[in-house]
């Protein structure tokens, strides 16, 4: 699918990220769902330099831990909680699992570009870390897995990770040690992120390989830890951004490919939709992997990330795990990847995992990350997201703009 013309940079239809907010991810049983959401929202609004009453549109990212909280989102509880009832034009939910943050960005940018909204708040909260584990395993065995065709074989999400990893390792010839080094690199980044679940715990390749097999060839430490967390961002138009900001972040272009619903139906489980989405995104943006300063790409399992990095052209085909092993993507390496620690080490906050990566991308491009992990002079970041059983590959080409 060819791209429609993108908005003229700096124009009223050119959407701009102007603020982000996030609270630490991890196990926080005392932190309530709505309390988390309001705090992340408040931080993003403050960061954007706006008043809460400037928000005229809410785009909500759903939680996965339970339906009652999700219903609160659907039926505008957030408008009341933020004191925006009677003020916001509309409150809506966007949902595509792990790629929701990318699609919420599309929705928010579209609302701004078409004049439907002036200042959009996108916000997410999740209580996965404190939820009942058996219930969550069952939830992750039913939702997003075809009941009639794959449920009957006992498929669940770690098994999908196993299927994809097995295929990737077969095609690339990557060793267990090379795969484990993906987790280690992400942990090194997480150690620099005060919001990361595992910021206080070192990790070695030996520890990964000594953990028990969960779904061959994936081991326990290679499975994402379910976490509580919340994040938010504010978008407006470039013309609005210019009034109060010296810098903001725009979308240079995007690409996407929905390659399957069932993991058993993807013709290329070792590639997924990335190569196709990348062609579209790079064509739209007019720049590509060689021009990027960093990347923030969905990583609920190591192979999910290595497959994406290869499809994005950030690694040569089959080389991403070896690149991780050679520390190319680690702190101090040649090219920073998942500088917040990713889902694997910052914590898997459900649909929020992709949100945390997107927010980190905007934070890096606004030059607001903590100094230890701020990528010096970061101007261009490739953001990648994937939902469900890695049903889609979504790419956002983010650019720093200075007035």
């Amino acid at each position: 699918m060819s791209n429609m013309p993108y908005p003229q940079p700096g124009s009223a239809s050119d959407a701009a990220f102007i603020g982000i907010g996030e609270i630490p991810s991890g196990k926080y049983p005392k932190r309530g769902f709505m309390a988390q959401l309001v705090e992340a929202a408040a931080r993003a609004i403050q960061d954007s330099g706006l008043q809460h009453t400037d928000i005229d549109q809410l785009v909500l990212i759903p939680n996965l831990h339970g339906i009652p909280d999700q219903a609160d989102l659907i039926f505008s509880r957030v408008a009341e909680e933020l004191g925006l009832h009677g003020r916001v034009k509309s409150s809506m939910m966007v949902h595509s699992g792990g790629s929701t943050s990318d699609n919420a960005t599309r929705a928010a940018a579209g609302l701004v570009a078409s004049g439907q909204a002036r200042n959009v708040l996108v916000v997410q909260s999740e209580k996965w870390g404190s939820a009942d584990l058996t219930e969550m395993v069952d939830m992750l065995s039913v939702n997003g897995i075809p009941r009639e065709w794959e449920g009957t074989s006992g498929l669940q999400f770690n098994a999908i990770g196993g299927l994809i990893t097995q295929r990737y390792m077969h095609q690339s010839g990557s060793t267990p040690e090379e795969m484990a080094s993906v987790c280690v690199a992400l942990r090194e980044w997480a150690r620099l992120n005060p919001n990361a679940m595992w910021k206080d715990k070192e990790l070695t390749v030996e520890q990964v390989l000594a953990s028990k097999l969960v779904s061959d060839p994936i081991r326990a430490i290679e499975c994402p830890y379910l976490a509580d967390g919340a994040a938010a961002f504010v978008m407006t138009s470039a013309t609005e951004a210019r009034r109060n900001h010296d810098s903001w972040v725009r979308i240079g272009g995007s690409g996407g490919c929905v390659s399957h619903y069932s993991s058993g139906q993807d013709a290329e489980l070792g590639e997924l939709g990335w190569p196709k989405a990348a062609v579209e995104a790079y064509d739209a943006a007019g720049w590509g992997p060689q021009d990027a300063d960093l990347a923030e790409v969905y990583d609920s399992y190591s192979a999910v990330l290595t497959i994406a990095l290869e499809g994005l052209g950030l690694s040569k085909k089959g080389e991403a795990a070896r690149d991780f092993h050679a520390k190319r993507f680690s702190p101090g390496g040649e090219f920073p990847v998942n500088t917040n620690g990713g889902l694997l080490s910052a914590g898997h906050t459900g649909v929020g995992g992709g949100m945390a990566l997107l927010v980190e991308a905007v934070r890096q491009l606004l030059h607001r990350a903590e100094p230890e992990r701020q990528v010096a002079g970061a101007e261009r970041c490739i953001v990648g997201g994937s939902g469900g059983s890695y049903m889609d590959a979504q790419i956002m080409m983010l650019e720093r703009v200075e007035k």
Partner: protein
Amino acid sequence: MSYIENAEQLTGPFGEALARGELTVQKCNSCGELIMYPKYRCPSCFGNDLDWCAVSGRGQLLTYTVLRFGAPSSFDVEPPYAIGVVRLDEGPQLTGRLHAGADGTWDHYRCDEPVVFEPADAAEVAQRPAAWFAAPRGS
């Protein structure tokens, strides 16, 4: 004009064939496309004259995993058990179960190696209608 009206009509014939020890896939009578998993409309020509046909049961193992912890509680099988994605010689692909080898493990499986359909016993198929595959005998 008649059409497939619900999930039972769509999936039923697959389970009935498995109960007979046969592996079948959906077939479009208009364009000849073999379809798996079955659909309400042919994904190729978008027609709705859809039928079923038996396949050889031979295919290639695209990938597999052995789940060792965290089986869905509704599945009611003690781990470990193995799941594989098989591309049939006829083209379509599907997820199914893998039989353990004589040593009780799945260590002999490799990606891209041949596998053959080998039905589970009737009680198993009745409870969990899945296609089971094994390494070809003598391999």
